[in-house]
């Protein structure tokens, strides 16, 4: 009798977590999937089942393909950029110089600034009309740049702004990882005559795979879903150059009254993100 009871106890403890998962993760996903197969009829206000019609119309829509391209292109640049910078920053913040805590504090400041505040500040600084960045460029004898107002520079400007805000945060996780690497490994390798680079390649990097996996996956997910800077700074423009999928989905839902299209985009994004994350897990699988 006791054993049967005991068998259920672990599940009971798991219940709150499972209920949370079900409620906050699975339910919205299923709900989105169902919504993406429906459309709202005006006048009658009836919700009609349309199967995969929303997906078919998306695949025939050049705006969707452009947004998909922008999203992937954006992620192709921002993720390696942020991870490399974060790793570099973490290595610097892990050095043993005096007052390192001061630098660690500074590093964290952009993280504490909210995304809208950061976006608006950068918008003012990057303004083509008398923005401070252009004033500096002109003072240095360079020509002023349009930044967010140009379709060739807007996405890169957003990569820069998002990285300014994000890198310090991700560096923190990598820093924690670096501090977990046992000093004895470095001692042993230096006795074997390993150079700094060899130490990094053979000690630091392999030992960092776990925190790195976490950071890589989190950065990818965060940037796939990033849309606040585009929403605040460019509204997807100029010429759709920053119109990422999530912004297009937002517009469909809340400007164009097309919830079916909006949720179809979200479902597609979910699939793409899942595939990318799965690949990342595979590549970064720790061997120890």
């Amino acid at each position: 009798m006791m054993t049967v009871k005991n068998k259920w106890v672990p599940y009971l403890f798991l219940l709150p977590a499972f209920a949370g998962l079900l409620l906050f993760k699975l339910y919205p996903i299923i709900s989105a999937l169902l919504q993406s197969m429906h459309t709202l009829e005006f006048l009658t206000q009836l919700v009609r089942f349309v199967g995969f019609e929303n997906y078919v119309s998306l695949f025939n829509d050049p705006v969707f393909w452009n947004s998909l391209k922008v999203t992937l292109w954006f992620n192709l640049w921002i993720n390696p950029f942020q991870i490399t910078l974060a790793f570099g920053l973490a290595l610097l913040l892990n050095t043993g110089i005096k007052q390192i805590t001061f630098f660690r504090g500074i590093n964290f400041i952009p993280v504490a600034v909210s995304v809208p505040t950061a976006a608006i500040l950068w918008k003012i600084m990057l303004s083509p009309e008398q923005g401070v960045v252009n004033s500096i460029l002109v003072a240095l004898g360079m020509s002023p740049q349009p930044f967010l107002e140009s379709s060739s520079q807007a996405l890169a400007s957003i990569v820069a702004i998002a990285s300014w805000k994000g890198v310090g945060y991700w560096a923190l996780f990598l820093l924690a990882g670096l501090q977990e690497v046992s000093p004895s490994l470095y001692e042993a390798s230096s006795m074997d005559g390993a150079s700094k680079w060899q130490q990094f390649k053979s000690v630091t990097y392999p030992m960092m795979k776990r925190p790195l996996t976490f950071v890589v996956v989190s950065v990818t997910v965060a940037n796939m879903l990033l849309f606040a800077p585009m929403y605040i700074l460019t509204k997807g423009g100029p010429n759709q150059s920053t119109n990422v999928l999530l912004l297009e989905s937002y517009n469909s839902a809340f400007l164009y009254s097309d919830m079916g299209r909006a949720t179809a985009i979200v479902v597609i994004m979910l699939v793409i993100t899942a595939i990318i994350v799965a690949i990342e897990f595979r590549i970064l699988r720790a061997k120890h």
Partner: protein
Amino acid sequence: MKKILSLISMILILLLAACGGGNSDISDENADTDGDETGGTELSFIAYSNYEAPLEAVIEDFEAENPNITVKLELAPFEQLMETIEIKMGSKSEDVDLLFVDSPLAVNYALKGYLEPLDSLMSPDIADAWVDSAVDGVTFQDQMIAAPMNSSSQVLYLNKDIFEEKGVPLPKENERLTWEEIIEIAEQLTYDSNGDGQNDVFGFSFDQIDRAYQLLALSDSLDAEMVSENGLEATGYTNSPEAVEAFQFYSDLFNKYGVSPRIDRAESIDYFISGKIAMYLGANHNLPKLEESDLNYGVSLHPYFAKGEVATPTGAWNVGISKYSKNKEAAAKFLAYLTTGEGAKTVFEIGGTLPVANELLDFIETDPMYDEFPNNIIRISATESRETAVPRPKTPGYLEWETNMNGAFKNIKNGTDPQEALNQAASEIDNLLKKYEEAVE
């Protein structure tokens, strides 16, 4: 074991129920207390934040007369107003009673079932209180779906000091320049005042930069229609040769002549007040703000193309009652107070906006108070709104049209070829308008 199993399933069911039905339960409770006569009624009103001062004054007076009704303002800046309405109304939220309705969106809101027709809620002859054009704008299938609150027009404000400094004669108050003349004068008034190599005083700027509301006056002057008769096609209209010519002019202001600063709408009035713009084509309701500043300014009439017609922007704010409101009677009472009689007068006096109530328009026309500057700006606007104003395109998908056009205007400002920008916008708009086909037939 059975006990635990049933416990688990019960918790799960409870959680799911809380998730699925939670919203409506909570709203119902609210609605009950709101509707309670003894406890008083609270109305929630989604409004454009620029109207905070006049609306609060009206609400104060209204609440004094109707102690058991309170009105709570939910303010949003222009950029977020439409989205706030879409999100709230799209989710059939019951906590909205009254909402701002931009004239060209009235049909769209009616199609989506956001608005309660007013005919059964307000007295049948109330429509006589407003000018016909305003009533037309909010009539859908022979029913009034919102009440007009105010209208707007644009005048050409002039910074007298810049004109004097550059020795350019100031246009007269009753003079209507052509766009060609505007360029000529603006070029003389654009210069680098601090010697840093970049122009910082500009000859001309629109108030609502990149906004269809104001820029349509360009294409209207060349008689370009923006959408097809049934309001469902933009290609061939939005990107017609006339439209391209009109918006090529917009592009030239920034890219060819460099007489307008590449700024956003929100910055334009401050640029004018701080003396960085010589000629500012702006709304009449900027008047209170200009009077507060110490700017030495004058006024002239809205320009037009030499080969075209005189056309000025217009657009009204209306207020509608939500279909999902639980307090429609009380909302109608407030709405009548706001848009006619004392309320309309307060909105006009405090907000400086152009009224749509016949009573007030007659007053502006005849009262000597409006003979002299700066109050004559109100009279000029009233005349323009009756004689030269062209309403915005009629389409059930005005929000889609406008959102994409505003984006196109921004691209044109930043150097995209107008033909290219308008072609792209037109094809995107066509795609978005398809969903209204069934509704319009």
